[in-house]
């Protein structure tokens, strides 16, 4: 087993990795930028080393510094967490060359599966379904013919594009030529490149992903699926496992496709294969994430494994610590991402201070966080502050516990999405498990905060007013003859 692990990350995931290392008797080294000097991961680790550099995110990406810190501290393994350097194959090469174990895939499979185009081609070549598509290659008539063969509805996208610009939905052949011409001229205008491609449009798509773990020798197990369809701004905010309303036979086919892909790639360590699932039951490979996911705890809860422990064992060459036949999903788990953001204002990120923090407790409640009371929330890092995870024997119980835990969670001093998440937990469509990636926009009107009652309003206002010395003076201090007048301002 590894003896000393450096966690090249911060926040909740650094704390999460340190926790498992402690359980296994592995020494830990944390790295931190000055702005994070009071953060929990700094205190939790056996050793903490401050990074040099002005820009906080750049410091956590500084490969030279991180490798030098490993060498100075006799570190034999690096856990990258997620984000930062976790999917940087160049970093994996450098770490390996320095004689340190990278706790994750090797650089070769990271390069292959981490590349959207290459991994898609690889998936298709190994019989994993990818969305049917046609690429424009010069001749317009030929492209039209190919696009028609893909089948309607079609999504026309700019080859050089992104962010939905110039995208067209075509539902019938008669509109195809005109829409492709328009899309091409828009693509020329936006991206200076008129090439477009046509892809089968998946209606009411669900985002289903499969957790896999490989040993690098072609042995792979899966730890079932996660439903990650609830997204805003293309980022997940609520995940659950198992996926609701997913027939077992279909689930098994999706999980097996993920395993076949990871086996073909001789994938090593933990990874996630993402699929788009259509309302018609067709599913397509989307991409593979070659790291531990933010939402890994829900898999841990229903499968009963410690994924970080499994990662450490695989990295140490001990092989996959469990057999596929022993893997079972028991109960239900939901994760909510607690973000510093304002749902009422198009989810724009917020800043402030975590002035009050009361963490929910109780059966089936887990709070994965890297925050402390008093900590500033600055624009330097991602807006995710913590993850709340609940477990129940049924989906209803997990959702009920989540709603209660969100009510019990007090985080004051920075605008956040806690109350919004609680409204999702009460939403009838959510409770019916009718999920797809357009769910949050579809339910937007029902997810708006209801007006507070007059009684709540006056109570909230007075609770605040009583903190103000001016208000207190007028309300309590001034002798009676003068009390009739009110407030003055500077």
């Amino acid at each position, binding site marked *: 087993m590894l003896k000393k692990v450096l966690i090249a990350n911060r926040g909740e995931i650094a704390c999460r990795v340190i926790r498992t290392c402690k359980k296994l008797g592995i020494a830990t080294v944390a790295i931190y930028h000055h702005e994070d000097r009071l953060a929990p991961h700094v205190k939790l680790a056996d050793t903490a080393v401050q990074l040099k550099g002005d820009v906080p995110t750049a410091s956590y990406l500084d490969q030279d510094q991180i490798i030098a810190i490993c060498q100075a501290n006799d570190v034999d393994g690096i856990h990258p967490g997620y984000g930062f350097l976790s999917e940087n194959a160049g970093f994996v090469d450098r770490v390996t060359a320095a004689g340190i174990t990278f706790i994750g895939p090797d650089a070769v499979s990271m390069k292959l599966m981490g590349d959207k185009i290459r991994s898609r081609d690889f998936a298709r070549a190994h019989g994993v379904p990818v969305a049917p598509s046609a690429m424009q290659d010069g001749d317009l008539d030929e492209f039209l013919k190919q696009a028609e063969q893909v089948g309607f509805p079609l999504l026309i996208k700019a080859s050089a594009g992104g962010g939905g610009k110039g995208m067209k939905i075509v539902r019938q052949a008669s509109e195809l030529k005109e829409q492709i011409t328009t899309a091409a001229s828009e693509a020329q205008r936006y991206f200076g490149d008129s090439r477009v491609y046509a892809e089968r449009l998946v209606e009411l798509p669900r985002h289903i992903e499969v957790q896999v773990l490989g040993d690098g020798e072609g042995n792979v197990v899966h730890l079932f699926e996660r439903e990650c369809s609830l997204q805003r*701004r293309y980022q997940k905010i609520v995940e659950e496992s198992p996926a609701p309303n997913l027939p077992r036979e279909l689930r098994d086919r999706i999980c097996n496709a993920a395993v076949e892909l990871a086996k073909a790639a001789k994938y090593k360590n933990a990874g996630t294969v993402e699929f788009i699932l259509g309302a018609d039951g067709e599913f397509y490979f989307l991409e593979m994430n070659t790291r531990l996911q933010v939402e890994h705890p829900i898999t841990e809860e229903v499968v009963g494994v410690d994924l970080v422990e499994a990662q450490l064992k695989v990295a140490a060459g001990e092989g996959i610590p469990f057999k596929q036949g022993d893997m079972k999903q028991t109960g239900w788990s939901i994760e909510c991402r607690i973000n*510093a953001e304002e749902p009422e204002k*198009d*989810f*724009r*990120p*917020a*800043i*402030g*201070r975590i*002035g*009050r923090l*009361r963490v929910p407790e109780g059966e089936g409640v887990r709070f994965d966080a890297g925050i402390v009371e008093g900590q500033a929330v600055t*624009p330097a*890092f*991602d*807006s995710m502050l913590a993850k709340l995870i609940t477990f129940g024997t049924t989906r209803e119980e997990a959702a009920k516990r989540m709603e209660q835990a*969100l*009510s019990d969670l*007090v985080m*004051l*001093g920075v*605008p*956040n999405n*806690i*109350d919004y998440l*609680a409204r999702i937990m009460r939403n009838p469509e959510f409770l019916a498990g009718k999920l797809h990636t357009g769910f949050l926009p579809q339910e937007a009107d029902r997810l708006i*905060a209801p007006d*507070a009652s*007059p*009684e*709540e*309003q*006056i*109570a*909230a*206002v*007075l*609770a*605040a*007013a*009583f*903190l*103000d010395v*001016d*208000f207190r003076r*007028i*309300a*309590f201090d001034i002798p*009676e003859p003068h*009390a009739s*007048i*009110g*407030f*003055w*301002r500077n």
Partner: protein
Amino acid sequence: MSYEMLLNEQDVSLDIVARRPDLRIKNGDTVHTVAELETTGAAFEVVIDGKTHTGWRYAIGDEVFVRLGTRTFIVGLPQAQLRAHSQGAGHDALHADMPGTVIALHTEVGAEVKAGDKLITIESMKLQVGLVAPRDGVIEAIHVPAETAFDRGALLISLVALAAPEAPKAA
């Protein structure tokens, strides 16, 4: 004179109408009898018309975050209320409410814009956000070029009212 506050950005006005024997506070057309049981810091306990309300609160600057039951309110003390109104009047300027970078400009000086038109895309905390025109008007000046960084509170774009349509001139 009233004690002017904000409750989730809406104006709220309180008047103390009596202090003895009970503290009586008027809000709108209603007069409430109020008592404060818990005065220490974060936890609060206020009694309004005989009913006890408990929760948590935290003041940051002139704003107070109040957790009451299952929801959080952001209450602006009078200074915050004043600030909101001085900024809001006329809506002539788009300020940055956090530091970030200009990703793209969608307008130009002299352009006529309608309320809700996207004027600028900025990036803060790894998220891109579009800022829209607060009202109809003409772009007077763009204070930050594309791909530049700005600080919290920076003036990004100023907007002037549309000139009243001129009467057609005689030929």
